[in-house]
């Protein structure tokens, strides 16, 4: 059940998206997000949808893998949709007591839900096609280019966090089973009793996370890890013509989204 979370996973491959420089991918991701939030009408969304599908197709990641990644976010997406549908003022199309649906709300709700879905899609696509090492490397270089202090440390923290998501999930399942073997019940009962039933799960989980962090820090120190200063790389990142081409494409994407916002 918890294994369905795809955020932070990497699926090896040789697709054009896999081959891109991680810096390109990170920067283009930011541009994509800006473009996504610029779009505010139907034709704009159609364009973004096609663009997103194209990237997925190019990455050769099965659509199903990405769709499965939405599962843990369904609640948030639904909440966004429902809040917008019922809370926006405008032309009423359906009413029941104090509940009313408006055209504007429906539109806004669907747009916001789509935004969230595309955001998750494209972010998980980044981690699905980039090894954690390449990802940190890229992130560090991007942050350094903006003169961010502690760029290396930040990037390192992020990779470690990503790296440990699957481990934590596994650990959670294990502890859950162990407590279920002692008669614990995580599924039934009211909200309060359910929250309370999480204590036997959360306490051991926190403890094991601290233990793991300790061990990892020790292992890193034992191999003389000392942060970012004057660190050299085994594999130097190299921008290729395909990276410049990708930048070109993303600028066109930005252009079209801008155009769709003000001229349609």
């Amino acid at each position: 059940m918890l294994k369905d979370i795809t955020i932070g996973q990497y699926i090896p491959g040789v697709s054009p998206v896999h081959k891109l420089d991680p810096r390109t991918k990170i920067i283009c991701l930011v541009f994509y997000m800006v473009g996504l939030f610029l779009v505010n009408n139907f034709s704009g969304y159609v364009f973004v949808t096609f663009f997103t599908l194209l990237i997925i197709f190019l990455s050769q990641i099965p659509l199903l893998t990405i769709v499965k990644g939405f599962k843990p976010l369904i609640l948030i997406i639904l909440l966004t949709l429902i809040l917008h549908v019922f809370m926006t003022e405008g032309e009423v199309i359906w009413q029941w007591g104090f509940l009313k649906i408006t055209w504007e709300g429906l539109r806004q709700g669907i747009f916001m839900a789509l935004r969230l879905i595309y955001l998750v899609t494209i972010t998980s696509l980044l981690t699905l096609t980039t090894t954690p090492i390449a990802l940190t490397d890229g992130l560090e270089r991007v942050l350094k280019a903006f003169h961010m202090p502690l760029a290396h440390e930040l990037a390192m923290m992020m990779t470690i966090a990503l790296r440990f998501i699957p481990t934590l999930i596994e650990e959670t399942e294990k502890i859950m089973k162990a407590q279920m073997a002692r008669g614990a019940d995580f599924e039934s009962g009211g909200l309060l009793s359910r929250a309370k039933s999480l204590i036997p799960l959360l306490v051991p989980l926190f403890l094991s996370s601290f233990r793991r962090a300790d061990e990892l820090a020790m292992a890193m120190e034992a191999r003389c890890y000392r942060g970012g200063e004057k660190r050299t790389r085994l594999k130097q990142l190299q921008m290729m013509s395909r990276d410049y081409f990708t930048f070109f494409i993303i600028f066109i994407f930005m252009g079209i989204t801008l155009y769709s916002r003000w001229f349609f």
Partner: protein
Amino acid sequence: MSIILEAVDYIYQLGSVHETNALKGINLVIKEGEFVGLIGHTGSGKSTLVQHINGLIKPTKGKVIVDDQEVSAKRGKLKEIRQKVGLVFQYPEHQLFEETVFEDIAFGPKNLGLAATEIEKRVKKALQMVHLDYEKYRTLSPFTLSGGEKRRVAIAGVLAMDPKYLILDEPTAGLDPRGRDEILAQIAELHQQGMTVILVSHSMDDVARLTKRLLVMHQGEIIYDQETRQVFSYYEKLQEMGLDIPTVTKLMHSLKGQGWSVRQDVLTVEEAKREILQAVKQAVKEEQSHA
């Protein structure tokens, strides 16, 4: 009364790219009062198998029956079955969470909805079973204990459910030799008191010393289900599966290889000692008769 598995298949992540057939056609009957060992390489399906017995995992195909109750049924009485089948996971001390030893061991009985006096009785008995002093330990925080003590408290947490069948998944992993011997001795004692025990282990020495019957798993199948002594006579086959035989048994094999006339189905140090002494005596006798 017994544990019965009928043609059990289990497939992990059915329908995805990661689909793996973890169990294939498992047929197994474990009777009350038995002491069964379960060995196999990492990933052979041992843990998956034992989790079927108390309903933590439901089979993709087949039936699991504990004391005439079908665990695998859609609406199985899981609470009752989990009380009956105590499962001690690997590194069980990682599941400790309460502020005191007493509270932690009481977690299981509380979930069963027992009365306070009964819970206290259960905790007392469970601590006694793992040879920890009730008065001394009950108010301590489980996190201040030593590794071996923590593990014993965690095992007591399962014993407090008063299970009829006890399954232990590598109960000695990561313990020092003394801690290991103590835990094993306590498990043997529990069996003598009438508990049915299934011991999952990587240590051939432990299995050889304790169990009468031994299951060998390989790639999701039970390859051998025989008397322990018999199973360890398949030295080469076991090695092919990446498994080993007990150290003393190996010693006897190599002695035999050097021309000593010793039995090879020896499982314990005591037996080995007797066998070697006899062989030496015989050799001396032969030499004297030559001279």
